[in-house]
Each structure stands twice: as structure tokens, then as C-alpha cells.
């Protein structure tokens, strides 16, 4: 009896109609597409995107030249250039190079930074025409990269 019912269902294309019903229902539900340049997707604050260096209220860098970020970076893309100040016996930052070509956005540097100076910000539009633009120095890191925000 069950096999007869199965045969009837098969002849009446019940299994196929079931699928067709699902797709036609989906056709009238709103699309989930984000039309990228016009609509931008919501990025969570933890997103690890463009690297930036923080400055304090007077515009001085927060970096204390401790070199921890350079040590923890698995890809060795950070170079901290520093000099020991003979008076204070402390390191002073003379330059900072972030080679974003090799960065894999693991976030170890921002995690280890004691002053929350280096941060991976949620900015994700990082495409550039020239690969040299990915080697960022201190001014670029503080100012942010030259943005190309795509528009319609």
C-alpha cells in the first residue's frame, strides 16, 4: 500500500513540487544582498582591519618604543626604530614601519601593546594600486591611509 502511495506521489511529481513551492516562497521574501558601494555592511568594533597608531590629546604618539609588538608579530612586519635617551634612560621612538604586505591581521600586536597605541581598526577598504603604499610609516599610521571610499 505504501509503495502504491509512493508511486502515485512520484507520478504526480510531489517531491518536485515540494521543492518548487520552497523556491517560489523564497522568491517573495526580501533579498539579503548588500549593494556594496551604496550600502556598507555593518562592521563590528573588534574587526581587525587597517592598522593605526594612537596619539594623545596633544598629538604626541602613545608609543613608548617598548618593541613588544615587533617581537610578537609572527610575520615580523613591524620595525620599531628607537634610541635610548641618555638622560632619562628610556627608549624614544624615532620611527615606526608597519609592512602591511605581510600582515595577516592576527591582532597580536594590538593585544600586547601596553598603551593601546597600535590598533587594528575596522576599516576594511584597503585595496591600493601600488604595493609600495602598503609599507606604512609613523605619519601614515597616525593619519590613516589615503582612503579610497568607493561610491556609486
Amino acid at each position, binding site marked *: 500500500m505504501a509503495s502504491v502511495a509512493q508511486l502515485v506521489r512520484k507520478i504526480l511529481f510531489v517531491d*518536485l513540487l515540494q*521543492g*518548487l513551492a*520552497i*523556491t*517560489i516562497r*523564497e*522568491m*517573495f*521574501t*526580501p*533579498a*539579503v*544582498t548588500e*549593494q556594496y558601494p551604496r550600502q556598507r555592511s555593518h562592521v563590528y568594533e573588534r574587526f581587525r582591519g587597517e592598522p593605526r597608531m594612537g596619539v594623545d590629546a596633544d598629538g604626541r604618539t602613545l608609543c613608548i618604543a617598548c618593541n613588544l609588538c615587533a617581537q610578537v608579530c609572527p610575520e615580523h612586519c613591524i620595525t620599531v626604530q628607537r634610541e635610548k635617551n641618555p638622560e632619562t634612560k628610556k627608549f624614544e621612538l624615532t620611527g615606526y614601519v608597519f609592512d602591511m604586505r605581510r600582515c595577516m591581521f592576527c591582532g597580536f600586536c594590538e593585544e600586547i601593546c601596553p598603551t593601546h597605541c597600535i590598533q587594528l581598526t575596522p576599516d576594511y577598504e584597503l585595496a591600493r594600486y601600488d604595493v609600495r603604499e602598503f609599507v606604512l610609516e609613523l605619519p601614515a599610521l597616525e593619519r590613516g591611509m589615503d582612503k579610497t571610499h568607493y561610491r556609486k
Partner: protein
Amino acid sequence: MLELFKPYTEELVKIVILLALVSLAIAYLTWLERKVIGHIQSRLGPMRVGWHGLLQPIADGIKFILKEDIIPAKADRFGFVLAPLLAFIPAFIVFALIPFDGPQAFTVGGQTYSGYVADVNIALLFVMAITSICVLGLIVGGWASNSKYPLLGALRSVAQLVSYEIPMALSVMGVVMMAGSLSLVQIVLAQERLGWWFFLPQLVGFVIYFICGVAETNRNPFDLPEAEAELVGGYHTEYSGFRFALFFLAEYANMITISAVAATLFLGGWLMPFPSLFAPYLSWVPGIVWFSLKVFALLFLYLWFRGTFPRYRFDQLMGIMWKILLPVAIANILVTAGVMLYLNR
């Protein structure tokens, strides 16, 4: 020389109009497909060129024409160039035979014109014949590409198309028997006389015809010749630019042909549905509108199928044809003949 063509002015004008309309219809069928499947898949489809991507087909056409014409170095040039034409031209010829509207469709300057280019007394046979030529384009294209995937695709498609022609031809025989004519115009008129469309008495034939039509046009779930998952692109893998566009257009033209023939044979062509109900209000609607609506509904089915079903395997496809469709089509003919004999006793 011009004098010779004078008696055919009406036909020539109609052919020109038809070519333009059909080309436009094909172009917008591609747009429709992308839109429908997009929405089925909870996407939007083309949105950028024009309002809701309405100019997308034109942009695509320009892109195809401007693309570099690539002929693979080891391809057979003669076949490679010829194949898209072999597929494309027959696909367009068929439209000359399809009655878009009745014998007295338009009145221009006091003279009535019919809604078709030619009423051939073997029109149905002719449609079958012309569509069977399209196969040549596929196999020559696949062979001439001199590449393995296109060849596999071409061999599949030929086996598929040649086989599915058989149940397809048989499935329309019931209609031919009921109408007593092979002329498409006469078949529609027979439906008018009968008062109901042939898809009711010939439901089995209609289903078989449509399944075969899906297979004939290489559409999902029978799109094996171009199964991109296995064969990358099928017989037109090596084609690009305008030659690819010709194959592409031929496929869509075939879809329209199959739907148009199905609408003519089974859905009453240009006739109005439920004339007793609608005739007082809707008699001003020209028959071509009804016809287009029917064709559109069938085309939508194609797109809907594509958005829903997986793909059969090649041997299963042939099994369906030989083990199910062919016997059922033959049984349909026998039953129709029996019933007709009984009724006409």
C-alpha cells in the same frame, strides 16, 4: 530583381519586425532569468545598469561584440566559425512558422494582416525539422574546439537532443490527431472550435512535451551538455566573445520556440482563456498579448526549474527518456486514438 520580391512584401516586413522583436525578447529573457533566479536565491540580480538592471542585456551585448575574437590555435577554423551559425540560424527560422496571432490580427490601411509570417500545412513537422538542425551546431562546435571537455559536452548533447526528439515528436501526435492538421494555425483554430484547449485532454502529452523541451534546450535539470560542475562549460567551453553569444542566443531562442510551440499546441495560442467569462470585458486585448502571456508563463517555469532542481546524470537522463517518456508517449497516442475512434463511431 526587386520586382521578384514584390509579392512577398508583407512577409518581408513581418520578418524584419519579427527579427527585431525576437532579438529583444531573447535579450530580456536573459535579464528575466537573472532576476528571477536572483530573487529565488534571495539575491537581487542585476541592479547597476539602468533601473533594476534593465539595460543589462544591452550592456552585455556590447561587451560580447567588443570582446576579442579568440580562435584556439589547434581548433578547426572552418568548423569553429561555422558552428555558432549552425546553432543560431535555425533557432531564428522557426519563428516564421509560429502564429503569434490569428488570421485577422491587424488592420492597417483597411487591409487585414495575419499574425504570422507563413501558415505552412506541415508547420509542426517543419518546426521539429528545423530545431533538429541546431544539434549540428553543437556537435561541430564541440568537435572543432579540439578540446576534451567540449567534445564530451558535444557528444552528450547530441545523444541527448537526438533521443529526446523522439518522445517530443510523439507527444504532440495526440494534438495533431485531435486537430487533424499539422498546421499550427489550424491547430489553434481547432482548439477554438473545440471550446477548450488541448492541454486538458492531452495533459500527458503536454507534460511529456515540456519535459522533452527542457531537455532539448539543455536546461536544468537536463543541462548535462553544459554541466559546469563536470564539464566546465560543455560544447562552448572554448568559445568567447560574439561566437559564444550566438550559442547563448540560440539556446534562449530555442527556449522561446519550445514555449511558443507548447503555447500554440496545448494552451490555445492566441486564444483568450475562459471566453465565456472574459469575452465581454477583455475582447479588446489583442491575441498576441494572450500568446505572450502564455509563452511567458512557460518560460517562467523554465527559470523556476533552474532555480530549484539538481541535475540528472547522463545515463539516468537517457534512462528516463527510453524507459518512461517514450512508452508513455506511445501509450498516449494509442489512448487518444482509441478514444477518438470511440467518440467518432
